[in-house]
């Protein structure tokens, strides 16, 4: 379990998160959505221990602030929104950096690359990839780190991702969502910031909706995807529909230019 209570965080004394409570379970995909600047990335940074905050974050019952770095690296991996590289590493060299818990097991790196659809990219220079390809290469690295969704002793592993699919085309978006789904179905926990409401409705077990640093609601998609709730959070008219099999979807409405 990941439990965050009464999280307040700021940038240069400007409040960015205010009394946010958040939870995520292993075996589930928990998505964080909300308009740009709502504080989604900041919340993820708080959850991964990368941003100072007031409140408590507990991962598997342990206070995140007191979690030794090495132990954390064993059970959770983090995919940032983008990762520029300083030196001319090849793709496989980048992915292999993720083998911190599986040193020398190059076959894992190979398979992770294939899973993100980059088989054959091993020898390419990372810096010469497109933004979406770089993001998928980083995902492969992160997957290497938590290759088993559950540890040998039964502790769940966690995957934190900040907008993992925002720079991808739809086929690769679906591929990445499938990877997240598989990780959760096999017992791991997935927490991700999402931009696309329809992909979120399709994939998430739990959705946390942020607006201006406050949590509006965290619930299953059916309870979050309502015209009034989403419309108010994003500040525009949205029409939420439902399909019998696939659940909610959001239809955008044309607005007039003010």
């Amino acid at each position, binding site marked *: 379990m990941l439990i965050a209570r009464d999280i307040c965080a700021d940038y240069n004394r400007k409040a960015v998160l205010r009394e946010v409570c958040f939870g995520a379970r292993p075996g589930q995909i928990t998505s964080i959505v909300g308009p740009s600047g709502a504080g989604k990335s900041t919340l993820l940074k708080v959850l*991964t221990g*990368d941003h100072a905050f007031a409140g408590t974050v507990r991962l598997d019952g342990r206070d995140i602030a007191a979690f030794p*770095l*090495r132990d*954390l*690296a*064993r059970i*959770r*991996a*983090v995919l*940032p929104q983008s*990762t*520029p*590289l*300083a*030196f*001319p*590493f*090849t*793709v*496989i*060299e*980048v992915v*292999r*950096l*993720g083998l*911190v818990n599986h040193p020398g*097991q*190059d*076959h894992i*790196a*190979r398979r992770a690359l294939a899973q993100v659809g980059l088989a054959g990219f*091993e*020898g*390419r220079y990372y810096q010469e990839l497109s933004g979406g390809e770089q993001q998928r290469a980083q995902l492969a690295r992160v997957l290497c*780190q938590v290759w088993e969704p559950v540890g040998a002793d039964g502790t769940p592993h966690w995957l934190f991702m900040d907008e993992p699919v925002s720079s991808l085309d739809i086929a690769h978006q679906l591929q990445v969502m499938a990877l997240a789904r598989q990780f959760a179905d096999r017992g791991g926990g997935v927490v991700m910031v999402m931009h696309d409401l329809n992909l979120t409705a399709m994939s998430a077990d739990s959705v946390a909706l942020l607006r201006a640093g406050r949590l509006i609601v965290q619930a299953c998609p059916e309870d979050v995807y309502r015209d009034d709730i989403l419309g108010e959070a994003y500040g525009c008219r949205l029409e939420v529909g439902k399909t019998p099999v696939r659940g909610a979807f959001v239809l955008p409405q044309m607005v007039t230019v003010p």
Partner: protein
Amino acid sequence: MVTQIAASPLAGDRSRAARRLGYVLVGLLGLTCIAGLAVGAAGTSLWSALADLAVGRELALRDKVVLWDIRVPRVLMGMLVGAALAVSGAVLQGLFRNPLADPGIVGVSAGASLGAVIAIVLGGALPLAAAMGAWIVPVFAFLGAWGATMTLYRIATRAGRTSVATMLLAGIALTALTMALTGLIVYVADDAQLRDFTFWNMGSLAGATWGKLAVAVPLILLPLAASGLLARGLNGLALGEAAAGHMGIPVQRLKGAAILIVAAATGAAVSIGGGIGFVGIVVPHLLRLATGPDHRFLLPNAALLGAAMLLLADLVSRTIIAPAELPIGIITAIIGGPFFLFILLRQRGIVDL
């Protein structure tokens, strides 16, 4: 299936090539060593001396002095200084996540010079001077380099990100400031100190003696050996501080250790060799082009190539206008300066950021 994949060499994996390059560099270093021992102004022949030794004949005193007391320490010193400068450059670049960082360019060497000059001129008056003996110059050079590196890091890096432009500009300011302070101190020096300072400042391996070597060996070998422990951490750091932390790398400790290593190696190299620039940028850059930026191989290979390159430069410096000598710093600058500009132009994008 899986074992088959594991057995075949991985496309894009340059670790084997890097290891092989290491052996080549050992060979190259061996050759430059022999050349360094064989060539010299005195005209003593290494080969006839070796032949004499082989048949058990006593060497002429003059040949013995030339070989054993001049050329051998000079070659060893050149190797140490070259290795120290190249590894300092590679570690500094890893720390700043930026291929343009060089101890000479960003002011670390200038800081070391200031420390060394303080020791030379004010030496007697300093606390613990008697206890430190011959160590006082390298120790103060280390302190100066350390202060400069810390200052530079504080200025150029905010929230884990280094601005290349800020780093280079801060390096210019830092160099100007430390050089002004150095000038101030030289101004109060007496004649004997001034002579010491001038010889040292010209940057030469000519003054290498066994005595100096005894001080330099631990000062340089220690940080060189320790740099190996940073290799994995620096690889992770290439992804950024946050990502390195997520992979379990203790980033703050890594950075502190990297700064100490750069300061110790640069301080020792500068206190021995004076102003020898650009080795720290040319060597790692060539190696990254050849076999990639993986620090597990980059650091040891940089030590080997740096040592070999400095021996070659030293060879040129003492033969090109023989029997006189050209300061070695001039040769490395003539080769390294345009090289630096070349990298700068190719990477113009990152500087404009």
